[in-house]
């Protein structure tokens, strides 16, 4: 019989993969796009380990070890490229590189955005409590530098 744990783990892997896919399709910050790619890799890892457990074979787990390795390499190289792109444009925006698009794709033009989403945060202020102790300067001359 098909075990329920395998079914659930595969579903969780699918959900994680889809979330990462939506993130990499929509988000415009290069770093968040890479985070979404890593999320897709996590979904794949969960599926591989679930199948590995189902078959009683450790090949899936070994493959996940390589996924981890390649993800580490990819993150190092990709972040270097992100830094290079940032030093050229001053933005972490994927749309800053839209001059590389195909000829027939229309140019993306941002609408005007208000400066911030909401009013600046209001931090709580502590009400002054207690009474400042009175000090006798003449009695304690050695404390004047304290």
């Amino acid at each position: 019989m098909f075990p329920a744990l395998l079914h659930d783990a595969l579903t969780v892997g699918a959900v994680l993969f889809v979330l990462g896919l939506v993130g990499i399709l929509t988000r415009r910050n290069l770093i968040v796009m890479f985070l979404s790619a890593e999320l897709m890799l996590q979904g794949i890892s969960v599926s591989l380990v679930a199948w590995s457990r189902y078959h009683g074979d450790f090949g899936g787990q070994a493959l996940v070890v390589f996924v981890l390795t390649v993800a580490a390499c990819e993150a190092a190289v990709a972040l270097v490229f992100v830094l290079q792109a940032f030093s050229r444009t001053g933005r972490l925006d994927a749309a800053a590189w839209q001059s590389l698009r195909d000829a027939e794709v229309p140019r993306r033009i941002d609408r005007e955005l208000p400066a911030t989403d909401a009013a600046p945060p209001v931090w709580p202020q502590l009400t002054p409590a207690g009474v400042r102790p009175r000090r006798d300067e003449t009695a304690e001359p050695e404390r004047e530098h304290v």
Partner: protein
Amino acid sequence: MIAALLPTGTTPLLAAAVASGTVSLWLLLPQAPGSDWLGHRRGALGLVLGVAALAALAWAGRRLGGLGDEAVFQIVSLVAIVGGAATVVTRSPVYSAIWFALALAGVAGVLLVLGAQFLGVATIVVYAGAILVMFLFVLMLAQPSGLAPYDRVSNEPLLAAIAGGVLLALLTTSIGRLSADPPACCTIPSRADAVATAPVGPAAADALAADPLARLGRELFGRHLLAVEAAGLLLLVALVGAIAVVSRGEVAEATRKGAS
């Protein structure tokens, strides 16, 4: 039992989960404020729909005879999914990275429940400990103060959410069909079955041995020895390549400044 339940019982539930999850993702993705009639209520509506989607998904899994027996699995997968969704929809990239760390904790928990101790710990150590810190370093270097405009809008959130929903529907349908009746064409010869039926020695009889760590090590350094060497080489190449690209960029920058 599963086959009896699946065609009638769980399909509408799964469909509802996927649909409300899609709409919730669309509502929660960063968009310019006031772009439609929902206004600032879209966040609250998206959250409600997301919770409904998660509940429907969990309920569908319970009807299948899964979740619920495994309370730990349910909790850690909830953490993973909520963390992943928040990674995608959070506006601030720093918070996004922190949510990703939470999703990693959930994934590590799922891996632990599935019996992959080494991978669960390695996920925490390598991802949350190294890769995520690298992401945060780059964010600190490159993130402007406050929310940049490109963090507050996204590319085609509706189309992307629909694409994700369609893919999720296809995946859950095929997983459900797989569990209902594994078709004859696609049943993979299971190693567990092979071990159970074939008369082999005592070493091969323990399909899930008492020490899975040792078995993973044997697998890695036996069947995949060459791949391990290649992975080591890949790490070295990535290290050297990253440093080379950075330093070449600095040289180019210096020459450009010197020329101007």
